């Protein structure tokens, strides 16, 4: 009977989680959505606590207090630019917990059915893979780009599969550890060769993996709530990684296993070799202006579009930029923001950074909407972005980013590039916009230039 009640309460908690996810579909309902999630989780925790003996509850409360304090203090202090690192760290915790729980579950009973063993093995190996992959992703995002590169993916894939089969035949703790050791190494091998620019995809993929690990544990415990929640999380992560890949016009396989296409790697290294000379040539051709001239240009315009990239967040320019926008609004100039899906380091990152600088979401446009607006725009300010505006993605078939959906900033009347230097972007591709007669360049640190623009506009 208690089992039936549990099932009903679990389903209600799952409904809370569905409500929380669907609440996130609009900014207006997002707050309510986050509340639903908390209510569901709190109810489930309270429910499982009352069914346990008192001596257990004390320990659980201690554990919850320690974990809760760590989690809350981390989440409160962390700057929003470090959000991708935080997400990778959190995914690694889920993976590690999944491995631990699977081990305990295996140890708790002397014999398991073959089906349960399969579920334990799948759950724990996905968990181990999530853990090590997330740790590597965290290190990469945190700025350790020169991690040693191994390319033994096939070796460890084979080792994982063999130890998987042996574990099914001899289900003891030793083989469990071997299996998870192989899965850990496999996670490292999967994420290590992925390029830094592809990190949004990797973070979403790890999100998906942590969901599938939850699912695996849910199957082995025959817990309906874990299965449902794991499925939501898994599909959500998969959809996010698909959206990110589509925004870069690359397939998921190409992002994850791109380093196997040695042909491609050679091509891109050639293009980076050619690059310094072409930059020098461009340097003479592109028009470099100062803040005063840029302010005059802006004052004469009616509609302004701002295209921010990750470079803006790196130089902490968003607050100065918003000050500038407020001044422009005071001059009755209409200012909007255009955000490319891969503008930040994780899905939706740039939107959060802008929102943190008090930008209303009504002023922020997504790719298609912004592209329909560009012909009416007098000045487009591109700050800290490069590849997402590169028109060779539309025209030049030999370009590595050919076919990638871009923001058509060249359709506006003037383009104002705020850049640190004349160098090219993440992928090392020339941007023909720099030499476009419509383009003016403002070179320097993003934050400093925005402050100069504010001063110039005040006069």
């Amino acid at each position, binding site marked *: 009977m208690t089992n039936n009640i549990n099932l009903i309460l679990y389903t209600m908690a799952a409904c809370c989680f569905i409500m*929380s996810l669907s609440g996130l579909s609009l900014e207006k309902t997002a707050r309510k959505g986050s509340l639903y999630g*908390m209510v569901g989780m709190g109810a489930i925790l309270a429910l499982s606590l009352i069914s346990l003996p008192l001596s257990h509850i004390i*320990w659980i409360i201690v554990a919850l207090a320690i974990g809760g304090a760590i989690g809350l203090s981390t989440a409160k202090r*962390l700057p929003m630019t470090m959000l991708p690192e935080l997400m990778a760290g959190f995914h690694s915790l889920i993976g590690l917990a999944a491995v631990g729980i699977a081990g305990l579950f295996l140890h708790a009973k002397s014999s398991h059915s073959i089906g349960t063993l399969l579920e334990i093995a799948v759950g724990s190996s996905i968990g181990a893979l999530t853990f090590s992959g997330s740790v590597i992703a965290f290190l990469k995002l945190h700025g350790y780009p020169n991690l040693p590169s191994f390319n033994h993916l096939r070796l460890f894939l084979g080792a994982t599969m063999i130890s998987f089969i042996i574990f099914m035949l001899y289900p003891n703790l030793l083989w469990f550890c071997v299996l998870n050791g192989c899965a850990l190494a496999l996670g490292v091998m999967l994420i290590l060769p992925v390029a830094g620019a592809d990190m949004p995809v990797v973070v979403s993929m790890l999100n998906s993996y942590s969901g599938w690990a939850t699912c695996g544990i849910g199957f082995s415990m025959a817990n309906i709530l874990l299965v449902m929640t794991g499925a*939501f*999380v898994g599909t959500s992560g998969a959809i996010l990684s698909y959206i990110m890949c589509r925004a870069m016009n690359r397939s998921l396989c190409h992002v994850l296993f791109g380093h196997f296409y040695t042909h491609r790697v050679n091509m891109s290294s050639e293009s980076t070799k050619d690059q310094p000379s072409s930059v020098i040539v461009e340097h003479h051709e592109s028009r470099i202006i100062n803040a005063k001239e840029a302010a005059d240009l802006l004052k004469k315009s009616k509609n302004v579009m701002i295209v921010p990239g990750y470079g803006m967040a790196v130089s902490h320019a968003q607050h100065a930029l918003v000050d500038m926008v*407020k001044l422009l609004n005071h001059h009755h100039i209409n200012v909007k923001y255009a955000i490319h899906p891969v503008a930040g380091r994780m899905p939706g990152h740039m939107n*959060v950074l802008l929102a943190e600088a008090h930008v209303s979401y009504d002023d922020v446009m997504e790719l298609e909407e912004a592209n329909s607006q560009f012909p009416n725009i007098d000045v487009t300010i591109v700050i800290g972005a490069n590849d997402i505006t590169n028109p060779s993605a539309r025209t030049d078939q030999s370009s590595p980013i050919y076919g990638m959906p871009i923001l058509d900033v060249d359709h506006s009347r003037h383009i104002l590039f705020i850049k640190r230097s004349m160098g090219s972007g993440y992928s090392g591709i020339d941007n023909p916009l720099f030499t476009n007669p419509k383009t003016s360049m403002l070179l320097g640190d993003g934050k400093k230039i925005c402050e100069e623009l504010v001063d110039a506009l005040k006069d």
Partner: protein
Amino acid sequence: MSASLLDQIKDIQNNLNHLVDQFNHLNSYAQDVSVGFVDERIVLLIVFILSCFLGYFVVWRVKGSLHSPLMSMTNAISSVIILGALPFCATSVIGFFATVLCAINICGGFSMTKRMVDLFSKEFASKGVSVYDK
């Protein structure tokens, strides 16, 4: 005449009772069979498949600008895996450790989601102080 009618009615009644008994017997037998034959794992698999579809349709509706809170939220709710750790929390070190890890995720994930979602509110956007007003 009336006596034979009464007999007939009684006869029919007996038959009916017999039929009801048989039906009840058959019903309980059918229940036994169904309980024995539907594997718990199949139910879980059905739930899993339907949940995948549900998740797919719900997540596609999420606006692009809210993808970061979405990821933070899914991370927080995937810590329901804590239900697997709770029974072992008091009895083993690993169980305690797993509970702590999940608790970090629950509190950190939800408070991060809330922090982000609050940024997208109208009140917060209007709080921005204009340079011109200073």
